[in-house]
């Protein structure tokens, strides 16, 4: 348990998720690997930071991503090497592709509101009642006429999607048509892009 490290991680690393995903997507040919790559980058950063906090978290994050992709290439996990870009260029590109931007309180709120609005209907209801109206799980179940178990499931889904939308990126940049079987949330994601 290391609350300070966790807080650092959220503050200095997670805020760059959108840029990280953008870079991974650009340099890695296999979309299906992205989720796993992202997690692996986080694991490496977190473990390294547990020993010594990097002084430049953002650079460290992207350097880690670069190393990871290189490692995976060497280990032959990737069959086709051709489309994979030049990772060294990443150093230069990071700031170009995603200039440093700290979100102000208002932007954070806007992003949250947008993330919230993208949730599927039932999920959105549950999150609102729990989070804003502060009803208990039981009260939410009664109000919506569903079981507590379902409320909990919707909550789990809501938490996951909010994290994805909040950290992961802007709805407008839907430049990755995710394969339906890869993520069954895609259908929900779509209905809100109008």
């Amino acid at each position, binding site marked *: 348990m290391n609350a300070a490290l966790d807080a650092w991680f959220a503050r200095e690393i997670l805020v760059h998720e959108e840029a990280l995903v953008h870079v991974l997507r650009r340099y890695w040919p296999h979309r299906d690997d992205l989720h796993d790559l992202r*997690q*692996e980058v986080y*694991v490496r950063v977190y473990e390294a930071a547990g020993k010594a906090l990097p002084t430049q978290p953002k650079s460290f994050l992207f350097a880690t991503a670069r190393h990871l992709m290189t490692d995976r290439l060497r280990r032959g996990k990737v069959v086709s090497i051709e489309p994979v870009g030049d990772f060294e260029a990443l150093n230069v590109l990071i700031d170009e592709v995603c200039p440093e931007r700290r979100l102000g309180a208002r932007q954070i709120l*806007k992003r*949250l509101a947008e993330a919230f609005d993208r949730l599927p209907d039932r999920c959105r209801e549950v999150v609102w009642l729990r989070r804003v109206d502060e009803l208990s799980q039981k009260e939410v179940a009664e109000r919506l006429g569903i079981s*507590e178990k379902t409320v*909990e499931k919707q*909550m789990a889904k809501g938490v996951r999607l909010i994290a994805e939308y909040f950290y992961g990126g802007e709805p407008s940049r839907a430049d990755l048509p995710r394969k339906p079987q890869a993520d069954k949330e895609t259908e929900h994601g779509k209905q809100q892009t109008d």
Partner: protein
Amino acid sequence: MASSRQIERDAAQWLARREGGDWSALEQAELDAWLAASTAHRVAFLRLDAAWAQSDRLKALGAGTASDGVPARGQWLHSNFDLQAPRAESMPEPPTPAATGHDAAALVFAPRRSAARGGRGLRYAGVAMLALLGVASFWGWQRQAVVEQASYRTAMGDLSDVALADGSQATLSSDSRIEVALSRSERHVELQQGEAFFDVAKDARRPFAVVAGGRRVIAVGTRFSVRREGADLRVVVTEGTVRLESEPVGGRRQPTSVLPAGSTAFASRSGVLVRIGSVEDAERQVDWRRGYLVFRDTPLSAAAAEFNRYNARKIVIGDAAAGELRVGGNFRLSNTEVFVRLLEQVTPVRVEHRPDRIVLHSR
């Protein structure tokens, strides 16, 4: 080895279970074990937990917009975010008077707040309080109808605790005046003068709005203080989140500021400055409720201004150098004499006692 997506699902499930209530020590131990099992678990959970913690801010959006239940998609975005508005919010530093290197003599003394445990240490002078109570006018079906109206005021040097009909509590500072109107749809308080601290009873369907000088401070269930000086406001939030809205200026909508616990907002004609600090810092700024003024490295000019809010006999700063001295410590707000006597002993200040005021000169 579970896939990263599976781990994320598991993490989400843990989080949902924890948030679901009835969370036992045993379950926490299970979660801890799961987290300790792999860094992948840990970062997945941490990420969801951080996003979920952020989503607490949705409450601030909910305040005032939700009439009942979940708002329609997209609707609230328009009401809350005017993209044309200038980004004038959230600046790191408050507009404190320019600091100089003159911070040598700080006085720190006085046992820390013995009154804290015994509740409100100060005797509230109820006599000076004027309460026009209970105009219970019912237009039943009309939601906007005022169902309860009252006004309260305090004289110089007095504090007053007021229990509002909705269960909220207001503490009026010295020389302050509020006008309360509770309706079915809104709890409306106008701060006409001075400062008041609010401990708001939770009622998501009836936002609590404090209006002063063209601005609205909105909360659902939280604790905060609003101080008014002419058209300028200072808002201190010690618990929960409040939203600060401003009237349009020249037809242009002004940005809304969201103030989490620990923040202090200064709103003036030139805009809104928000300082986000610890809750402890924020609490210190509303210690007047306990009859104390607390200073930490505060310019003497600012400390004097604080004392002057509570005392008829004013402290006047004789020269700029005296005003720039930094002081610290806890003081009874009613006891100006003790404060200046200590100043004289510990800092390079000479005190001149006049019948109507106390003048501080640098030595």
